[in-house]
């Protein structure tokens, strides 16, 4: 077993870290306060060809794996960009995997290069107000009318829809009562987000204000036939191809955020003097930080293990879920401990850790809840009866 990064993986980490030095703490604090999308980071990543890290070489990508993408996303989050930086490009990195796997050569040639070049941004429309994790219960309808589909319905938690040009959309093409299994009758589309037929409503939220989350209302959006990805009715199967990579990447982002918070806490504990000595000399301060480091390391190994399984074609479901669970918890704990280490200053925005803490809730909640991860492990790994 070789745990060392390859030369290419080190190059990914080092170059991303260097690019991110252009975007300092003040940049991210301002983006959060002003609810402003980090276009400059997105542009820098596009310019360097990084958005295509795991896209096929023939369409302008680098043809690397989810392992390298995870290293990249961790480095972005760890730079101080946190989830604000990671989420700004997250969807563009792995989201079009269904197009890579199920798209026709014509679709790949049309859809992938503009995304990789940063000329188009994409968002992801799956979750609905009445169908969160119960994906097959979605109600958004795409009705076939000759050579096009017409969409009516509603999505929620669609990140980056304010700035996106394209949407990867899951909609029901056959009503649920007319299919044998509820996983059937759903279709996947990658199409232009035509704002004349789509209303995007911003959701004010706890953290990561820089990257918008939205409610999206579809009122007669027309989708040409050639924008459907894969066979009609097989959209659920198609979209599953993006789920494990997403969990692996979000795990890496949570670890990056946790390490970033831990480094701030370490620095503060070294510099801050009370009773004539640095507070980091007290075991009550240093032991929790040591614990955070260990838990982040363990989660990191799990994440790399899951990425390796995915990249080598192994079953990555349980590993990716476990990585996402452990990384989210370790990241959250580390951010919490960073605030506590700073004491009152941790509550002040000037010290940044409160922003990290607000962002660290995201990987705990999305893209799948802790509870459903536990259900997955109980059912699929331990063989216990399905509970829901």
């Amino acid at each position, binding site marked *: 077993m070789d745990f060392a990064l390859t*030369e*290419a993986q*080190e*190059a*990914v980490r*080092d*170059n991303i870290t*260097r*690019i991110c030095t252009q975007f300092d703490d003040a940049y991210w604090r301002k983006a959060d306060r002003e609810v402003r999308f980090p276009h400059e980071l997105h542009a820098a990543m596009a*310019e*360097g*060809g*990084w958005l*295509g*890290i795991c896209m096929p070489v023939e369409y*302008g990508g*680098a*043809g*690397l794996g989810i392992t390298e993408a995870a290293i990249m996303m961790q480095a972005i989050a760890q730079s101080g960009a946190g989830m604000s930086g990671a989420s700004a490009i997250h969807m563009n990195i792995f989201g079009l995997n269904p197009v890579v796997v199920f798209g026709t050569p014509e679709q790949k040639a049309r859809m992938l290069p503009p995304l990789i070049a940063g000329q188009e941004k994409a968002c992801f429309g799956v979750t609905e107000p009445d169908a969160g994790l119960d994906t097959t219960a979605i109600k958004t309808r795409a009705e076939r009318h000759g050579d096009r589909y017409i969409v009516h319905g509603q999505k929620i938690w669609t990140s980056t829809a304010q700035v996106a040009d394209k949407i990867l959309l899951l909609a029901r093409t056959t009503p649920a009562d007319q299919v044998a299994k509820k996983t059937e009758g759903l279709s996947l589309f990658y199409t232009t987000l035509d704002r004349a037929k789509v209303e995007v409503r911003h959701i004010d939220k706890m953290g990561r204000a820089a990257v918008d989350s939205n409610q999206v209302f579809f009122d007669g959006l027309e989708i040409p036939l050639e924008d459907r990805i894969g066979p009609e009715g097989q959209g659920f199967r198609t979209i599953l191809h993006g789920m494990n990579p997403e969990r692996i990447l979000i795990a890496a982002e949570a670890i990056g955020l946790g390490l970033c918070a831990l480094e701030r806490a370490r620095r503060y504990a070294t510099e801050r003097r009370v009773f004539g000595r640095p507070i980091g000399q007290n075991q009550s301060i240093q032991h929790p930080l040591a614990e955070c480091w260990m838990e982040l390391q363990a989660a990191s190994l799990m994440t790399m293990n899951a990425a390796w399984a995915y990249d080598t074609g192994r079953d990555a479901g349980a590993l990716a879920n476990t990585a996402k669970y452990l990384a989210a918890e370790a990241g959250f704990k580390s951010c919490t401990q960073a605030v506590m280490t700073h004491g009152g200053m941790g509550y002040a925005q000037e010290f940044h850790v409160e922003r990290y803490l607000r962002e660290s809730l995201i990987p705990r909640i999305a893209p799948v809840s802790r509870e459903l991860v536990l259900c997955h492990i109980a059912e699929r790994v331990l063989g216990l009866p399905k509970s829901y």
Partner: protein
Amino acid sequence: MKILVPVKRVVDYNVKVRVKSDGTGVETAGVKMSMNPFDEIGVEEAVRLKEKGVATEIIAVSLGVAACAETIRTALAMGADRGILVESDADLQPLAVAKLLKAIADKEQPGLIILGKQAIDDDMSATGQMLAALLGWSQGTFASELTVDGGNLTVKREVDGGMETIVLTLPSIVTTDLRLNEPRYASLPNIMKARKKPIETVKPEELGVDVTPRLTVVSVAEPPKRQAGVKVGSVAELVAKLKTEAKVI
């Protein structure tokens, strides 16, 4: 015109260096290593000259342990065309490096060699000048601007008290100062391409150079710790202290 760019593998500039416990040098085991920042400026300048159509080929050379190939790879990702690794576990000092580079220059016949003005590890600032002397070429050291015009090279140099502009006849040696340019970030496609570019490995013996060290490091020690200062209550007290204690006025 071919351009030769020597690149040195040094402790990364972000790393806080630590002196080895036996005082023979600084700790490099398990420490992050990178390309000397001044050499990075050299690579960038060469790449810009190639983009302007002045240079036709850029050769990155590194001298030292096998891991120096990684430093060459970084230069290749920035835009160098091929690499030469002079592999040696010996302590390569400036004169030995200059002799090895001369041997490579004799073979490759570059029109220009761009070196960093110094390496951030030993701060010798010697190799470029020695190489110019060994080759008998013109040299423009501490360059902050560089223009090639036919067979001439105009170099703006940062000297005490201002800027000096000199015109050199090619072939030449240039050493880079900090303000010559701002090196680019390697793009992912170029990092991928760099993995396929060739790196040739040679040994000092094959180049007929004796690399035996001529300098001996007697000891390496940390600089003395800075003592805490004192706060003064008034200007009068400050002046008094400057006179009687610091004795600077």
